[in-house]
């Protein structure tokens, strides 16, 4: 559906040194998919989105939308943004204050050049899209009378009214308060499924990305560092950056003891001893690797019972934070490392206790350092 190939765009700061951009990013988006570009601010996600929209001109690369090349670096072919048939929701919504709700939503049909809409047809289409976002009863109102959440819905209606091939959402929820954000998130997902529109969603909020996306592309410093479903990204991070950026994690460094094949188990000699890990990629013996384990995957046991098994370290519980359905423990290992563990609150472990933490090998993931 959408193909982005070797997209390259470098911004120059005033002194001439590079000031961000994207550097050879490639990905493909399937028809009807909800695809998210995720990363911290300055990672290039908005730049990528604006290049797809046509609001920025890339330095190099090829962008193909529905078998039509809309940007071709080698031949300098650029389809201007107004000919791309892409709907976009801006971060600031950009609702025109001098028009009514209806006129805002009708604008893309009014300025359409390929097709002329009859008055009834136009009204029917606009009403339908306003109905979908729940603004039909406000259609005669001035756009300035809308609340933030309503402006957001109107921006979505405007982007969808001409049934574009692609919908771009640039941090659409970042200006809403927490409660409204969750509600709009569900609504966005519902509308996207209902219309089946291929969507690219840009956000820096990993929880939002996990909840809404079919697939996520994680960007860092202008490079695509991992692409996968939310489960894959969370369970099998491929780099320290991804592991730290998505959710909370424990991370240690060490060397491979022996050659490990992709998908096999292997042993890493590390700061906390020898640990059996799952290797998603191939690593050679002696190679530096890191491994990560999520706090909820660590099992806590009393220190006094039996001998120490494999993948087990002993430490002292420094603090226990009760969060309702779960409790969070901070465990100090020989005064050198901190281990974060999440577990059921009813297991009787208290601050000051000595405990053993078991790192299940299949949930302990070796990654590139």
């Amino acid at each position, binding site marked *: 559906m959408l193909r982005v190939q070797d997209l390259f765009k470098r911004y120059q700061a005033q002194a001439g040194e590079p000031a961000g951009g994207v550097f050879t990013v490639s990905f493909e988006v399937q028809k009807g998919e909800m695809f998210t570009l995720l990363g911290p601010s300055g990672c290039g996600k908005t730049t990528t989105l604006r290049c797809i929209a046509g609001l920025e001109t890339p330095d190099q690369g090829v962008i193909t939308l529905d078998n039509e090349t809309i940007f071709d670096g080698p031949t300098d072919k650029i389809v201007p943004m107004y000919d791309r048939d892409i709907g976009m929701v801006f971060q600031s919504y*950009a609702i*025109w204050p001098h028009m009514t709700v209806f006129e805002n939503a009708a604008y893309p049909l009014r300025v359409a050049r390929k097709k002329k809409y009859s008055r009834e047809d136009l009204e029917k289409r606009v009403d339908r899209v306003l109905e979908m976002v729940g603004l039909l009863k406000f259609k005669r109102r001035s756009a300035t009378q809308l609340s933030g959440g309503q402006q957001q819905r109107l921006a979505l209606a405007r982007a969808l009214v001409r049934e574009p091939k692609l919908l771009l959402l640039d941090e659409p929820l970042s200006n809403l308060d927490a409660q409204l954000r969750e509600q709009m998130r569900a609504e966005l997902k519902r509308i996207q499924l209902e219309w089946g529109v291929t969507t690219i969603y840009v956000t820096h909020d990993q929880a939002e990305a996990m909840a809404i996306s079919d697939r996520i592309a994680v960007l860092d410093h202008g490079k695509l560092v991992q692409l996968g479903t939310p489960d894959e990204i969370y369970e099998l991070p491929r780099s320290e950056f991804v592991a730290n950026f998505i959710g909370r994690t424990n991370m240690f460094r060490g060397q491979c003891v022996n050659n490990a094949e992709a998908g096999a188990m292997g042993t890493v000699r590390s700061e906390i001893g020898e640990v059996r890990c799952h290797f998603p990629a191939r690593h050679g013996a002696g190679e530096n690797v890191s491994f990560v384990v999520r706090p909820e995957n660590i099992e806590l046991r009393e220190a006094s019972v039996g001998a120490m098994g494999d993948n087990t370290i002993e430490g002292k519980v420094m603090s226990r934070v009760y969060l309702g359905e779960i409790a969070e423990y901070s465990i100090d290992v020989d005064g050198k490392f901190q281990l974060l563990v999440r577990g059921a609150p009813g297991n009787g472990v208290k601050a000051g206790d000595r405990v053993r933490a078991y790192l299940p090998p299949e949930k302990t993931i070796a990654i590139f350092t």
Partner: protein
Amino acid sequence: MSQMASGAAVTTAIEAAYVAPRRGPRYSIPVIVLSAILLVLILPPTIFLIKVSIYTTRPDGAFGELTLKYYQQLFASRFFVSALVNTTIYSIGSAVIAIGLGTMQALIVERTNTPGRRWVLLGAIISLGIPGVLYTVSWLLILGRSGPLNSVIENITGVKAALNVYSMWGMTLIEGIHFVPLTYLMMSAVLRGTDASFEEASMMSGAKPLRTFWKITLRMGLPGVMALLLLVFIRAFESFEVPALVGLAGNINVLTTNIYQSSKGSGAMDYGQSGAYSVCLLVIVAGLLVWYSRLSKNAHQYQTITGKGYRPRVMNLGKWRYATSALLAVIFLLVTGLPLIMLVFTSLQPFYEGVTADSFRRFTLENYRVLLGPGSFRDSIWNTLVMGASVSTFVVPFTALCAWLAARRKPGGWVLDQIATAPLVFPAIVLSVAFLYVFVNLPIPLYGTLLSVILASSVRYMPYGMRYAYAGILQIHRELEDASSSSGAKQASTFMRIVLPLLAGSLVSAWLFIFLLSVQAVSLPLLLVGPGTEIVAVTLFDLWQNGQVTELASMGVVWVSLMVVVSAIFHVVTRRYQVMAG
């Protein structure tokens, strides 16, 4: 025991409820003192102005009986109606010219990739350093009877003096072009303040750039353009330099020149008539200003500076960008280049008789030699600098304090805001007339002194100081001051230690801006200065009346060079501290 405690609690609650409505005093001592100073400055001229228009004046200067005859005479005279019509045509014409050129410039600079667009700012900086008198004079030299333009026309068509600049079109054109830098700067601010995503959203909806410009950019900018149109209209309405230098010579009277003539006519001064004229002009300008403040409130409703993710959108014009480049160059020549070149050329002539082949063989530095030697010119430069610096130094700290008390809603602070902004309704020439009455009637000999000009100018520029300081204070987050108070600082120390340092950028800008305006005004000091207290702008005005064109030009060149430096510093400071004054 518990009953007693709850009884006490109830009493306290009642007391609290009773006391609550009068939190703190209704007024404070600084507010009273500042209001008193302002009233002492503003009330006497206002009262005198109204009184002379409704009382007869005896030969010794005392007031006679109450009368409406000055107003009756005024409304019955043909001159009043024709002056009103002339003023209106002239003001509309110059507003349209200024907005047209200024908006075009702003659009090209802010929204296209035209080469050389950054240089437009330089033109604006230079323009702010050219006094209105000098600007008008340069254009009169260019367009005048023996000026280069008429010579060119004569060479081509053989018609002598085809263009008569001493006419309505001449006035309108000169005044209109003079306002271009102002409209450019203000339109630029409007364009920059509008989030580019409004336009991007239109393009993403499938509208082409031209359509986006018509349906979004222009429609959203319209309130701003309308407000600016009215502002320039008001400024032209109360302007003096162009009507005095161009209109009077061409027998085209407007309201301001009528006031001037009846105040400084030959023989005895006609107090009653000039008073009645002044009051009429005052009422009209006040009405227009109320209208303007309504309009400009609407004008800013669409301005949403989101900051986040904001990037100005620049349109790629392709080959056409050289055409727009040429257009910018033409505007620059019109607004800044030609007047300056003409001025320098004239200053190098022993006598002026137009631009002829002979005149290029007569270049001399004699004018400068005379000028820079000892004499009245040095004195008038010194007088002017002292006057400008005094006005700024008084107005800026004074209005900073007033604006702070007003912006932070201290008890009675709004009164200060109202009084300090009030002089805005006085056109300069009216204020000049009003102060003239006051100084003539004062027992202390203030008339003709530099101090009289300083006092009058301080009142005139008070509203400008207010504007700068108010905008500056609104940029300072309220909690920065609250943090100072909760650290135990009293209001005075909060103002001195927190507000003033944070406001420094705005205040320096305001100081320089008011300095530039006050040293270049003609109409305000014109009726107030006397022998020995010459002001540069007034001297330039007098030199033109005396026909000493080459002396005038050389003096102008020196003065402009000085002022451009001040103007450049002003722009650097304003940009550095990102001062915003609407």
